[in-house]
């Protein structure tokens, strides 16, 4: 089920833990990239990175929590699984409040970690898929002419063709032509679907 483009990004300061974790995840068939500290990952980060982040909560220099904060500021969507030591649970809870998907306590069982990684990857894939869909809708909306956009807004508001024609002082026939172009450009045949699509990106297109 995992996307072959997805990568598990491991940020861990302990060399042995990092090395062993990378080997184990690779032997389980995952793509792995490792970083020995938070800064190294932060400077390598870009929004196209897909997969999940396995992040040690305690590290010298910038720690896991600080990296999470920095990534949030950059609107990163990478799901984060925090790796914690004994007694770090309060920190992990705090991290969850800031959007981490999960945490796991060292030393962990492989199955448990793989399960968490798999669900994080799934979440990432879904997030990315829905983001792509939204971006697609936005692109379609942006391809409309101002007149088409005006017609679509009135369609979504529930106005009948006749009403639109009267209010805009155009022929009903002209409204029908615009309407069909809108449906075509937006890639749908159903008004109900159009309404859902546009509402899902409402905050993106109104801005």
């Amino acid at each position, binding site marked *: 089920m995992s996307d072959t483009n997805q990568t598990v990004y491991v940020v861990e300061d*302990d060399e*042995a*833990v990092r*090395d*062993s*974790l990378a*080997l*184990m995840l690779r*032997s*389980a068939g995952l793509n792995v990239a490792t970083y020995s500290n938070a800064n190294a990952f932060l400077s390598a980060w870009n929004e196209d990175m897909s997969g999940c982040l396995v992040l040690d909560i*305690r590290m*010298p*220099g910038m720690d896991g929590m600080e990296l999470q904060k920095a990534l949030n500021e950059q609107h990163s969507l990478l799901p984060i699984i925090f790796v914690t*030591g*004994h*007694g770090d649970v309060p920190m992990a809870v705090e991290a969850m409040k800031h959007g981490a998907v999960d945490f796991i306590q*060292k*030393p*962990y*069982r*492989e199955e448990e970690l793989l399960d968490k990684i798999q669900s994080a990857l799934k979440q990432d894939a879904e997030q990315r898929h829905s983001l792509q869909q939204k971006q697609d809708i936005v692109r379609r909306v942006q391809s409309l002419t101002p007149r088409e956009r005006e017609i679509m807004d009135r369609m979504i508001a529930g106005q009948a063709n006749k009403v639109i024609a009267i209010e805009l002082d155009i022929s009903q026939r002209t409204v029908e032509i615009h309407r069909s172009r809108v449906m075509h450009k937006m890639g749908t045949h159903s008004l109900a679907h159009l309404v859902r699509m546009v509402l899902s990106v409402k905050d993106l297109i109104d801005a």
Partner: protein
Amino acid sequence: MYLMTADASIHTEPTVLLVDDNAQNLKVLYETLKDRGYRLLIANDGEKALALAQRNRPELILLDIMMPGMDGFMVCRQLKANPETADAAVVFLSALDDVDAKVKGFALGGVDYVAKPFQAQEVIARVETHVKVIQLERQLQARNRQLENDQSRILNAISEGIYGLDSTGVIIFANPSAAAMNHSTVEELIGQNFCKLHFSSPCDWSDVSSLPVLATCEQGVAEHQRNVMMRRPDGSLFPAEYRATPKRDGHEILGAVVVFRDITAELARESELEAARRLVQEQREQMAHASRLSTMGEMAAGFAHEVNQPLTAITNYVRVALRLAAADPVDHALLEETLCKIEAQSHRASEVIRRIRGFVRKPASGKEFVGVRHLLEETREFAEVDARNNDIAIDVAVDEHVPDVYADPIQIQQVTLNLIRNALEATRSCGSTDAVDVRARLDEKGMVRIAVRDHGCGLPPDAEEKLFLPFFSTKQDGMGIGLALCRSLVQSQGGEIGFVRQESGGTEFFFTLPVAPAET
């Protein structure tokens, strides 16, 4: 003195007793000697002379030989027989000018002779000479008596036993303390041989040098012994200390003086003191151990992390190894490599545990030769747990040629760890992330000086008086035990502990340790 002036016999001027049956002679003598500073007494027969002499103790008696009844010789004999009057100088007066009488007079204790009819100048001269002699003699005797009194008072009062020994070791003098210590009497002790009396089974009586004190008596070698068992005449034993000093007259050795005392009580006190010392030492070690355990408790989370890391790595590697082993064909090289990594990680975990076990070991192992560099490195690794939590590094620098120290390694590690952890806390609480510096060098006094420097906010102004006192702490939740214990531990190693305020802020704590003696 006031009372004594009332005594008739005490007069400042010397007393001269004139004895003659002839009143004319007495008158002449009286006239001759009066106004010359003498107190003159007169007797016209022997009985009166004896009575006056007895009562007035004259320095000099001018004594006529030829008297009715008791003659001068008889008076003289009786004067000399009576201790109270024996010291008076008797100068005979007589018309007899024969040699026999003179000889008899001297034989009876007379000191001089004046012939009748006498010359005034001669009488005056002789009286003056003999009075002076007697006066000096009396002073000498008085002084002697006083000295003897003083001496015997001292010998009686002194708590040490004192023996005078002759050159063969026989006791010729013993003071009351010597008798008391022996549960005996002075009389019983005198005449016994010191060695035979006090030392029951000598190894070899023929070897003089092996016998206590005998070498002092015979060869003049001073001797001092402590904690030797001396036997009493009743057979019981007591631990003693004695000093034997040779008695000499020029080159001749006359024997020895032995001063000794029973040290039973002293030994008991010493052993009590020793027991108390041991107890203090024991308690210090227990306290140190308790404090190490408490330190470990505080650092437990850190150590759990230290052990968790290799365990996590091992778990991961094992999974990898299992997959490698299940593959077909098996990649033996990769499998072997993975197994070696597992081994390395298990060593890493056991190293952490070894360090902890070493630190909490009890009792402390005692003093040994300790390499400073190794010890500090090990301590740094130990403290690393806290350093990570505080995000502050620890720098260790040891001067070249810093010699080994002679100390208890665990306690030194404990003190160093305590100072490092304080320094980390001080630095962090001041918001700094500068490294804590640990330095070792040889100081001006030839001690090894280990210093731990923080970048904290400095100590309060009254820290000097209080910092090392128990239950004083500058920390919010500090017990105030750490530094007090550190001082106690360092001092028990023969070192000092202190601190120096840094001009650039922060504090340097240091302690010194004695350099290990050269190995032979």
